[in-house]
């Protein structure tokens, strides 16, 4: 089975995100970037499938040269190949734009790859759009937010998380799957893996090579404002005898907030 995994470089979840007064954009300086946590689960799943059934794992990222670090990490985890599709544009928050680039890359460079793995969401954009869009653009079935995946030849069964339940979904390859936390426990890179990854060459693909025209990679969103959330007024914090404190809290909920 030839597997593709799509991975994105994102700020880690602990980052304090600030907006520049001058540009109105996010200040990237001082942010710590990592492999998107959900994508890490996707990479892990791909490697496990290859270990069990054979085949190859290729990881692909759309982004700037800085994404090389996360591609190296994937190689160190055990991916066979990594490819960067170079995109110098600033984050647009437009899932369709990314999906079009990915769909074209699959058609032009990896037409024989049958399992396309994604994370369920990229931290930061928090879109949860790209996998479904790629599936539509390529005419493939999709199963998103997957916590269990079993493959038997070209047939697969996946558990997809929904509100208060799991959907058991049957599908056949080629297909798009997106990973939810809980699918597996990602492995740590080994020293040997890191050394091997260092030696591997990571090819860079340009938009020209993919014959992507400027209008195809234009953002479909017009961002008019970026702002920090309004500071919440500090509420009432009390330190009193438990009985008294509990009484006051419930009174607040009943009389003021009117939620009980």
């Amino acid at each position, binding site marked *: 089975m030839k597997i593709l995994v799509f991975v994105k470089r994102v700020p880690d979840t602990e980052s304090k*995100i600030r907006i520049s007064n001058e540009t109105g954009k996010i200040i990237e300086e001082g942010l710590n970037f990592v492999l998107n946590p959900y994508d890490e689960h996707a990479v892990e799943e791909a490697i496990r499938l290859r270990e069990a059934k054979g085949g190859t794992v290729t990881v692909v990222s759309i982004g700037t040269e800085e994404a090389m670090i996360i591609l190296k990490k994937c190689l160190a985890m055990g991916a066979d190949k990594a490819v960067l599709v170079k995109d110098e544009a600033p984050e647009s928050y437009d899932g369709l734009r990314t999906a079009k680039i990915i769909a074209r890359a699959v058609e032009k460079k990896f037409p024989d790859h049958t399992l396309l793995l994604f994370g369920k969401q990229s931290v930061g954009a928090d879109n949860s759009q790209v996998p479904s869009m790629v599936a539509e653009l390529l005419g493939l079935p999709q199963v998103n937010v997957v916590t269990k995946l079993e493959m038997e030849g070209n047939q697969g069964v996946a558990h997809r998380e929904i509100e*208060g339940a799991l959907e058991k979904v049957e599908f056949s390859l080629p297909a798009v799957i997106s990973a939810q936390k809980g699918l597996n426990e990602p492995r740590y890179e080994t020293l040997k893996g890191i050394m091997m990854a260092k030696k591997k060459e990571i090819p860079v693909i340009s938009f020209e090579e993919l014959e992507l025209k400027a209008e195809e990679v234009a953002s479909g969103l017009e961002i008019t404002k970026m702002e920090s959330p309004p500071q919440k007024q500090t509420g009432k*914090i009390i330190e009193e005898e438990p009985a008294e404190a509990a009484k006051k809290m419930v009174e607040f909920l009943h009389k003021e907030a009117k939620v009980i």
Partner: protein
Amino acid sequence: MILVFIEVREGKIKKFSLEALSEAKRRAEDLKTEVAAVLIGHNVENLASEVFPFGASKVYVLENSLLRNYSAAGYAHALHSLAEEIKPVAILFSASSLGKDFAPRLAAKLGVSVASDCTKTACRDGKLEVSRPIFAGKIFITLTLRSSPQIVTLRPNVFPLMEPGAKEGEMVKKEVVIPEDQVKAQVVEILKEEGAEIDVTEAEIVVSGGRGMKGPENFDLLRELTSLLPQSAVGSSRSAVDAGWIGHQHQVGQTGKTVSPDLYMAIGISGAIQHLAGMSSSKYIVAVNKDREASIFKVADFGIVGDLFQVIPYLKEEVKKVLSE
């Protein structure tokens, strides 16, 4: 026209779809246009009457036995034909698990972009303008979608339901033809999670416990509270999940679920940034923590500094008192 997709599960309309419909009605008044709703599935026609009171003057019904179970490809096929025919200016979905799966697929079929999980809508130059959290709520962006129809998903529990209005409207049934080969992924079974009566994302009150709960058995204290409160569910921090005290489907936060109930109660939770990411859009937040400096108090509307094991029993008694009034 603004079109709103109405989600049906186990023969019932989801409340958050009616929230989306109510919001569509408010915007349609600004844009001086109409709101229509669309029901997709098998034997869903009878549900139309429940949709009219929430602002839809028209309900489209797309039925086909192949649509009995949800499939993104099948649903997108059906709604795509309708959208091409009636050309709505916008299509609204709820950002439920189904909405998040379906809306982007439809959008890609129509060749348009999507704004996900929006928490505010407005009008600007005859179009919708929406705001949404990015970086798990650390930043809000306001944007317009350049192409038509504008496809937007709305975060559940954020938009108020309108006062129910007219009970009647026009129902339009559409013939849908779904090529069998369109549906290549099939839901074969729904596996219920044990004990999950209401999911945290759907509850009006969420009572969450963290590491301060000390052990799995103490989550019963929170279950006792939720058993008193209607439409409530037990949530948790990641630490409690990682410790194996409660299932991960209860986890609230950046790598758990995003909730915005009317009331969020954080019990023995410090309020780490990844936890706040999942609950800071709740309407009211209260906290019980023995550490006065805990970050959770920065976002709480009301907080008690104290030992939760002493406070919870009294809270339960007070809640009982108020409910019996």
